[in-house]
């Protein structure tokens, strides 16, 4: 709860005090967009047996649009970038993932207000706010075989790492591992939300596409921190 290294304390680059600014979020967006673009077919493939085969193209369309929007009028704060990305996803994705990811990022951005640069703890607060928003909007809980099964463990891992004195990069690396594991762990679950829930028992044995894309987004966050820290 009370992170020991105080935010903004002049630690080594890569400490929990490392700053997340608008540029950081923009670099994350670039990495995430590239990753979603690259994995688009796989996401659609995962959305075929238990969904409607559009998750990859949905994510791709949304992130390319978000990147365009941010490039056209780059907001000056990390919160501003996140809100713009969230809004753009809502306006361009559609489906279940559009409002959900849009809410994730909008709520996260709103949490940051107009702070110009934030530390790891505030980023964690923002992610927590975003994930809470997703849970509230979609009504899903852990284990329902949704994107939350990657997002919730990610935020928990980040929190744990920071609480244990880890740096931003370390915390996000832990979050990424947890998200990846969470995504893989959706395979044996029976879906209780979204399209896959229509399949009942037949949804078992397939990895959830939204959990998979959520892990990609968290992975991109970790990569951004790692590259910035290098």
């Amino acid at each position, binding site marked *: 709860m009370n992170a020991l290294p105080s935010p903004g304390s002049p630690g080594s680059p890569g400490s929990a005090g490392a700053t997340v600014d608008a540029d950081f979020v923009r670099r994350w967006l670039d990495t995430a967009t590239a990753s979603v673009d690259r994995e688009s077919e796989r996401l*659609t*493939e995962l959305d*075929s*047996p*238990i*969904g*409607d*085969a*559009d998750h*990859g*193209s*949905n994510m791709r*369309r949304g992130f390319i649009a978000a990147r365009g929007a941010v490039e056209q009028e780059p907001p000056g704060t990390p919160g501003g970038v996140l809100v713009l990305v969230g809004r753009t996803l*809502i*306006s*361009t*994705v*559609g*489906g*279940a*993932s*559009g*409002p*959900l990811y849009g809410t994730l990022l909008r709520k996260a951005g709103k949490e940051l207000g107009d702070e110009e640069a934030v530390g790891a703890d505030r980023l964690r607060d923002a992610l927590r706010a975003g994930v809470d928003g997703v849970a509230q*909007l*979609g009504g899903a809980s852990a284990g329902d075989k949704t994107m939350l099964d990657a997002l919730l463990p990610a935020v928990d891992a980040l929190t744990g790492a920071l609480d244990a004195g880890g740096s931003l990069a370390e915390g996000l690396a832990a979050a990424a591992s947890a998200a990846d594991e969470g995504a893989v762990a959706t395979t044996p679950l*029976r879906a*209780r*939300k*979204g*399209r896959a*829930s*229509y*399949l*009942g028992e*037949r949804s078992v044995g397939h990895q959830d596409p939204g959990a998979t894309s959520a892990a990609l987004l968290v992975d991109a966050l970790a990569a951004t921190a790692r590259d910035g820290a290098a």
Partner: protein
Amino acid sequence: MKMLINVAETVVADALRGMAAAHPELTVDVERRVIVRRGAPYEGKVGLVSGGGSGHEPLHGGFVGRGMLDAACPGEVFTSPVPDQMVRAAAAVDSGAGVLFIVKNYTGDVLNFDMAAELAEDEGVQVAKVLVNDDVAVVDSLFTAGRRGTGATLFVEKLAGAAADAGAPLDRVAAVARRVNESSRSFGVALSAVTTPAKGAPTFDLPSGELELGIGIHGEPGRERRAMMTSGEIADVVVDAVVEDLQPDGPVIVLVNGMGATPLLELYGFNAEVHRALTERKVPVARTLVGNYVTSLDMAGCSVSICQVDEELLGLWDAPVSTPALRWGC
């Protein structure tokens, strides 16, 4: 898989251009993806707006016109539209009498229409929503996203549209829509999987000699796979599913709906079996509609929807309708 398309990315925009070219009675905003009945808003009339993923044509765009929808918002293929479209549609058709959003019960549609309703109300449009969830193949429990909206969407759009056309106020139109949904049930069967332009290959494998029972309209597999059956046997399964769930105690309208690739010759033959099955179960049929109305791209198969009607609903069904895909009485 071959398709009559340019590239997957422009499929929806191309179709909207084609609709605009074919239907001067509609105003098609290709860029912003809104199809509006020419002349809207109609003074004093409640505006009806629906929408959903593309790939179910003629639903919804083909149902825009007198006595049915005032506007439709097509999303990407099998992807619900975005709130911006619905907000724009609501603004385009609101005469001040308010707007009814007809929403098929899918997480994506519900979330996007919810957001749109908030935004439209911010802009001063009075919005009511009705959820269509007629598909008995889905167990409606806490452990699912609830029943899907499928064939009954046509009933809701037609009957609520007729009520709005007759001048009913928003709460009344919404009440009709809800009553129609509550009086309707559907069940679908696939003989083949569907191929979306984005994926370019069938969404699931369906070996020859097998069919899927309880499919939706988005290429999702069904609840159960069975050995291929005759049209008569399929009719028994499908009619049992809807009749046992609805337990109608009066006449019904029946929609024998093709999923897209099943020839009309087969659909009519199937209709004969559906009528037989309904008669055997002592369900009187007041009206019948046979054709491809709520489709799933190139899927072979069919669904049956029934809607129990009283005098009022039957009158609304028979009322004039003039849209690209449904037209009578005017």
